[in-house]
Structure formats: structure tokens, C-alpha cells
């Protein structure tokens, strides 16, 4: 991680100095507070983000249309899907009128968008709360899990990929490739169960399902809803230790999945980089192999790696659906599964929309970072 940061900062600096040298020309100019290159790059960044925003608006409209289709058009009887087949005729009629199913399809679409525009995702039939509130309650647990897993993935995956590429075709390369091959061939939910069986039931090294021991449940004052952060803020180190013991296995399993993907992509970017002319030049200059690999090759590979890391972060939100079910982890994935099993269609669609939007948001952020660290991307 630190190497990556240092490298991307390093390459940023060198790009900056090249650009500003261009902008200044050969004549000495008075030192500016803000260098012209900074403004140029800010401009690129803003245009790129604006363009991405425009296309994202179209995508969001499409995303909502797809969820509308799933909720209202595909089911044989959407009312039944919402109220369930035990409902009385009165509540059936009320739900039908509330969903506007007596209106033409186009009016229904407009009504649906209007409701969503006001931030109203409907009410969950399972928890009887507005879905927006439910999601605010469940999302932080998923965020905590996915973030920790991504940190594992980066710390292990990038060095593994770099090392693998540097020793291409030799033993360490084969070992790393096989480890990561297992990572993305493994059903994560099954690995979670095997992990629980061995590490929790047999060896007792970690805590079982759930986010924290029942003893500390509700004992930590809620600030960020991220239990690791909240327990530290409250100075409750026993609760923190308990939360760590609970999050260790699910985050390690998702982290393995993430590491497999990141290592595989890092390896392929690095192999690509190591055959470039500038690497030959760097070696010819007599730079040490470590400097060539970590600074010159990885520095350039850092740009596409940002996309990879963001994609893997996004896919952890997906992978976590099954992992959360196995570990009874009270996150968005478990919420979605419970909603599915009790046919709570509003909650299913609400969670789907939120996950879709988070995915899009990640793409936007990646685009911005991408254009920031790589001035060639216009």
C-alpha cells in the first residue's frame, strides 16, 4: 500500500515537473502560487467528471427502469408479490391503488420516478420501517466488512502480483498464480462455512457468527455505526477486541477473494510494463532491480490498478451477500437475502437500487482519480 502510494505520488511529481517545465518554456517566469499545470489538470479532471456524470445520469435512469421492470412488469401479479398471498381483499385493493397499477404504464413509471426522487423507496413489509431507514441501519456493517477486506486485498495482492511478474515462469510465480486461481474459483460462502468449522468450532481461535459478542451488544454508543470505530471512540477496548474477533474471518475470506483478483491483474499489468522500452532504459542506466520494478514499472501500472481496486471493492458488496448470510453479519447483503426469502419486494428493489448506485458512484470516483494521476487520460 505504502509503496503504491509512494509510487503514484512519485509519478505524479515527475509528471508535474515535466508539465510545468513545458508551460514555463525556457524563459524564467515569476513563481506562481498555483502552477499552470495544476489548472490544466484540474480542467481535464472536471471535464472528465462532467462527461462521466452526464453518462451516469442516463445509466441511473436505466437502472431505475430495470428495477421498475423487475418489480412491476415481470411478476405475474406484482400486488401479490408485495402483500403476499395471505392478504385480505381490502389490503390487496389498497396496495393495488397505492402502487398505481390501475394507471397506464407510462404514468406508473412517472409516479415511480417521482417517489424515488423524493427519496421514498417504500416501506418494508418485513420490518415495517421505511426502506431508506433500514438501509441506513444495515449499510455500515457491509461497508466495514468490504473496506477491511479491500485493505487485505491491496496489502497482499499488489506485492504478490509484482513479485509474481518479476519472477515470471519460476516457482514463486506458479505458487502465487495457483493461490489466486483458488481464490476466484472458490465459492466464498462455502469457504466461510469451512472456516467457521475449523477456526471457530474446532480450534476456537476466532469468534462465531455476528458482529460482536452478545455481552457488548448495544453497549457501544452509536456514532458512525462502524463498530470498530465506535468502540475505539468510546475507549471500550474489550468491545473492540470482540468486534475484531468477529470480523476477522469474514473479512479475511472476502479479502482472499479480493487479493486473488488484484494479484492476477497486477501481475498482468506488470508483465506488460516490464517489456516496455523505459524499463530497458532504466536497467541500462544501472538502476537497481528493486527500483526498476517498484518505482518505474509499478508506478506506471498504478493507473489501471486504481480501476481494479475500485472494481474489486464494488464486487465485495456483491460477494458479501452470501458471506453475510453465512456469518449472520447484519449488513445489506443479509437484509437483501431476508427480504428475498420473505418476498419483501420493496426491500429487494430498494437494496438493489442502493447497491447499483454505490457501484456507479465508485465508477465515478475511479474516473476522477484516474484522470488525476494520469495526465494522458483526457
Amino acid at each position, binding site marked *: 500500500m505504502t509503496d503504491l502510494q509512494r509510487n503514484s505520488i512519485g509519478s505524479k511529481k515527475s509528471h508535474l515537473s515535466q508539465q510545468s517545465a513545458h508551460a514555463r518554456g525556457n524563459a524564467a517566469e515569476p513563481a506562481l502560487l498555483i502552477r499552470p499545470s495544476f489548472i490544466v489538470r484540474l480542467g481535464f479532471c472536471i471535464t472528465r467528471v462532467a462527461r462521466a456524470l452526464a*453518462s451516469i445520469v*442516463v*445509466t441511473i435512469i*436505466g*437502472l431505475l*427502469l*430495470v*428495477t421498475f421492470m*423487475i*418489480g412491476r412488469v*415481470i*411478476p405475474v401479479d406484482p400486488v401479490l*408479490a408485495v402483500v403476499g398471498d395471505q392478504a385480505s381483499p381490502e389490503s390487496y385493493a389498497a396496495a393495488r391503488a397505492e402502487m398505481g397499477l390501475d394507471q397506464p404504464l407510462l404514468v406508473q413509471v412517472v409516479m415511480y420516478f417521482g417517489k424515488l426522487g423524493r427519496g421514498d423507496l417504500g416501506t418494508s413489509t418485513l420490518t415495517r420501517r421505511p426502506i431508506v431507514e433500514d438501509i441506513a441501519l444495515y449499510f455500515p456493517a457491509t461497508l466495514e466488512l468490504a473496506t477491511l477486506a479491500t485493505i487485505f486485498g491491496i496489502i497482499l495482492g499488489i506485492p504478490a502480483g509484482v513479485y509474481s511478474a518479476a519472477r515470471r515462469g519460476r516457482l514463486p510465480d506458479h505458487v502465487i498464480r495457483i493461490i489466486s*486461481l*483458488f481464490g*476466484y*474459483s*472458490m*465459492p466464498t*460462502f*462455502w*469457504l466461510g*462455512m*469451512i472456516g*467457521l*468449522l475449523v477456526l471457530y*468450532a474446532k480450534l476456537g481461535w476466532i469468534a462465531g457468527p455476528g458482529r460482536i459478542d452478545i455481552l457488548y451488544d448495544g453497549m457501544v454508543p452509536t456514532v458512525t455505526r462502524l463498530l470498530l470505530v465506535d468502540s475505539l471512540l468510546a475507549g471500550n477496548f474489550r468491545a473492540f477486541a470482540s468486534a475484531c474477533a468477529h470480523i476477522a474471518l469474514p473479512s479475511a475470506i472476502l479479502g482472499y477473494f479480493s487479493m486473488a483478483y488484484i494479484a492476477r491483474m497486477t501481475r*498482468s499489468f506488470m508483465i506488460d510494463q516490464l517489456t516496455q522500452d523505459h524499463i530497458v532504459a532504466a536497467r541500462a542506466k544501472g538502476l537497481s532491480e528493486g527500483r526498476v520494478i517498484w518505482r518505474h514499472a509499478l508506478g506506471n501500472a498504478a493507473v489501471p490498478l486504481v480501476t481494479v481496486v475500485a472494481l474489486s471493492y*464494488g*464486487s465485495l*458488496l*456483491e*460477494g458479501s*451477500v*452470501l458471506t453475510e*448470510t*453465512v456469518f449472520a453479519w447484519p449488513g445489506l447483503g443479509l437484509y*437483501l*437475502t431476508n427480504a*428475498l*426469502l420473505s*418476498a419483501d*419486494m420493496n426491500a*429487494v*428493489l430498494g*437494496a*438493489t437500487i442502493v*447497491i*447499483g448506485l454505490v*457501484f*456507479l458512484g465508485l*465508477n465515478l470516483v475511479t474516473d476522477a482519480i484516474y484522470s488525476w494521476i494520469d495526465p494522458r487520460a483526457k
Partner: protein
Amino acid sequence: MKIARDASHASGAPSSRGQAKLARFSLFWRLLSQNLMAMVGLGVVILLAVVALLGPVLSPHDPYAQDLAVRLMPPNMSYWFGTDELGRDIFSRVLHGARITLSIVVLVAVIAAPFGLILGCVSGYRGGWFDLAIMRITDIFLAFPRLILALAFVAALGPGIENAVIAIALTSWPVYARVARAETLLVRSANYVSAARLQGASSWRVIRRYVIPMCVNSMVVRVTLDMAGIILTAAGLGFLGLGAKPPSPEWGAMIANGRQYLFDQWWLATMPGLAILFVSLGFNLLGDGLRDAFDPRG
């Protein structure tokens, strides 16, 4: 010796289309068969196909026959993978599950791959508003994580194995369309395509005869690499109770069933999980090998 054989491949133009195809195939096969990992993968995939075809002949017990006298037996000589809570032989059930897994994978590939291929080729070849519209639609589908979208579709369609196949196919085609479009953009401006058009070939004929054949290779690689993902998604749906129904020996559903016995009778959930891992590894190895053989630079 090897060099001599290479030279025979390269020397002179092939005398017929058939010979050219054979020569290309033999080159491709030589590249693939040198790759040990890919051969292991191919072996696993062939094994899956054989077990799926001959499962009923190979299995020592009836996968549905209940025998409470032998319930929850650990793996032993007569029940290699042990028995479940109803005394059914897990080994026979895993063998029968291969057929379900293979049919899901094949059905998804048969539905989604040609659809994505044709849509991507037409989109890339025609360009303009049609291309823009198709690419926006693929963007929308790719904006959802795959499993989540499949879950939502199954929730709307109702649980069941057919609906799981439809849901996975609905989430798979956009990637194929993207790959096919990217290949088409490279091929579109080639001289032989211009020559065909100058001879008066219609757009559809150009796409069918000149564009699609060029995209098939990358499609095969993509589909093979995707197979592992399809198997994992299908198993995930089965695990959540949204795929195959309980008595059916679908691997994901078997894991879900074994979950309540996990801590005391580990084999119920472990064995079908190993089967999923084995098959998904096989497809990934084969897919990697195919990619290297089709594109040796990669």
C-alpha cells in the same frame, strides 16, 4: 523434428479451406497441449461431461433413496462421501448434481453467448445511434453487481432452476456484447471487409460471414472463463434457496442443507463444496489456457 513440422505448417498456401482450418487447429492444439494447467482444466471439464452423461450408471446408490438406518454416516467404504440426514448417499448425489450444474452452464452459454455476440457485432458494425443505445443498455446491466441482479430477477420470476438460468443469462450477455463489439471495431475497417462490401455484400452478410467468425475466438475464451462465474452464481442462488428445489441434488442447495449439521457432520456441506471448487477450477484453468493459445502475446 519440431522445427521441420513447424515448417510444413508454414510452407506454401493451403490448397483448400478445409486444409487451412485443419492447419490452424493443429497449431492451436499444439499450443494448448503444451500448457499443462490447461490440459488439467480440460480433463476436469471432460470428467464433468462424462459424469453428467453417465451419472446414473456410475453412482453406487440411488441419490433419492432414503435409508434412516444409515443416516449421517461419516465417509466409509460403502458410502464414500458419507450420508445425509435422510440416509441418502452423498457421493451419488454429487454425481447427479453434475448433470444439473452442466445443464445450467450449457443453457446459460447457449442463450447468452450468441445473443451477446450478434448484438455486439451488429452494434459495432453499424455504429451510430444503434451502437450508442446498445452500449448504454449494457452499461445499465453492468452497473448492477451480477449476483444482485440475478437475485432480483429470481425474486420477481419466482424461485426454480429454469428461472435461475434465465436470470443468470440476463446478467451475462452484456459482457459478451462488449467483447464482440470491441473485436468488431478492429475488423470493421479491414481491407477484406471493404472488398466484400465493394462486391455488393449486404451488411448482414458481411456481419455473418466476415465479422462474426473473427469474434468467435475471443467469445469462446470469454465464455469458458465465465463458466466458473456462472457455476458460482448458480450455486449461490441454490444456497439461498432460490435455485433448484430441495430434493434435487444441486450442489449449492446441498451445501445449504448441510449447514445445519456443519459442526457435527462436516461432510454434508464439505463434499458438494469441493465439487463446486473442482469444476470451477477446471473451467478457469481451461479458460486461461485457451486465452494463451488464441493470443500467445497475452
